[in-house]
């Protein structure tokens, strides 16, 4: 198993997860992460039979396919009712890029 993460790595993980954590939360999260990773490192001891396949889903069913027919869906306005901000047609979000001119 890889080394358990230290502070900079926790920072990096929070960045990847798009979660803002303050200094105190980063420390506490790092400690818990370390504790859990130490616990799960017991998996290292499991000797896998040669050529064992991973099991990703509880049921290995065939692919679910259906006729490509048009069906009614939930109306757009009902979906947008849950949007923090919308113009009635699209979701509105803050600027994607900051204006660096000003």
């Amino acid at each position, binding site marked *: 198993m*890889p080394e358990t993460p230290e502070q900079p790595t926790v920072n990096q993980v929070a960045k990847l997860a798009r979660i803002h954590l303050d200094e105190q939360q980063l420390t506490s999260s790092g400690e818990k992460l370390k504790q859990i990773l130490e616990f799960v490192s017991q998996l290292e001891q499991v000797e896998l039979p040669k050529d064992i396949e991973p099991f990703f889903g509880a049921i290995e069913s065939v692919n679910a396919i259906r006729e490509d027919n048009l069906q009614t869906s939930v109306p757009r306005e009902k979906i947008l009712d849950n949007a923090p901000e919308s113009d009635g047609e699209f979701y509105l979000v803050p600027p994607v890029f900051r204006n660096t001119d000003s």
Partner: protein
Amino acid sequence: MTLSALNADVIVDQLNAGEVTATDCVQHFLDRIQVHNAELNAFIRVSESALEQAEAIDQRRKAGESLGCLAGLPIAIKDGICVSGQPTTAGSKMLENFSPPYDATIVERLKSADAIIIGKTNMDEFAMGSSTENSFFGPTNNPWATNRVPGGSSGGSAACVAARLAPVAIGSDTGGSIRQPASFCGITGLKPSYGRVSRYGLIAFASSLDQIGPMTRTAKESALLMSVIAGFDPRDSTSSKEQVSDFLKSLETPLAGVRIGVCRDHLNEGLDVEVKTKINDAISVFKQLGANIEEIELPQTKSAIAAYYIIAPCEASSNLARYDGVRYTFRAQANDLEEMYRNTRGQGFGDEVKQRIMLGTYALSSGYYEAYYLKASKVRRMIKQDYDEAFKKVDLILGPTTPTPAFKLGQHTEDPLAMYLADIYTVSANLAGIPAISVPVEPSSTGLPIGLQLQGRAFEENTLLRAAHQFQNETLWHTASPSEPWRTQS
């Protein structure tokens, strides 16, 4: 006998016979919620339209219309399951104001059967927890001892059935979230086989493990609910086309000749002495019922918690990426898009959810995938193979649901690993996709409920329900109710 003392199947019979109206029935349980919910916090919200729906059922009955098989029966739904037009929060600040535009398939089916949704129950945020302490809406208290947890994540559903604030409830189970609270609250809880019940409209935690199921006082009530909610749903591509058994019909078939496996490893290390004794007593009951008890081995289940705490957080980190401040009501202030994502997720998610997303993100990040997710998924295969082997010898596997009875509020909040180990006997069924049920056995000497778990082959819920029902015909533990006013227990 007061309505709250009756089982759901008896209530349905009385409603059908006109001995009680749906309005009176719903009012009775609403009154109980009104009196007791402040102390228990089992419900996040009570349905404003429940009485109106009950009146409509009564009118339709009066007019001689044909009604569904649950007509007028109140039912509580875990708040991680979408009910159209009613706030559905998953116990999170992130979804505090979210109102789904559609019904989950199981809700649609319950409504078609003319059941009445009486309210939405409390849960650990996004179903991540084993105590219901991780809810944004505060913890639920166990009606058997209000200073103890009801288990989780479906703690509100378990507590409301135990306290008879609703005759029956629906929960969801990703690693034990139906069975563990059922065990802590002295009720019956069934996690069906993966694919048996549609997940459409269940707010996703870990999609390869999540499953919806009934939480009731008796196995017969669970069978009744399963007969409504089970079956293929084209809107859930993982739901199974496997034929649905007649769950009620097989309940009375005697257990003579049924082979029940007991894994001795699960009855030794780390198990509370009293739990062990009560489970052994229950084994004797199954012997009297004609079942053959055989020893089996499940060597790889010792790695189940470790595998689960890689796989479930990995899936969660992906599933919960959708809560980014764009679509689901909550958005934190920010100057640009990236900052909005980070602030929204930093402020909208609680600590445990953030921790699991962090863990999943770490385990899936570049360079770590093989060591964590892939390894855990291979161990998952070995766990499944253990079950495949065991089920060649036996029809059911019996053991404790949890290593201890309900622990105290706050007891494990600072120690995630201690909390995770509450699921040590339950996670394997989710990893393998098999059904499992928890039923009450004799309580501890201090009066705390203890649960027995039965696990079965995939899609053999009927065998589980039948064994649980036969056990409940022989014992009375499932009929016990916590005494009012609720007590604490040191």
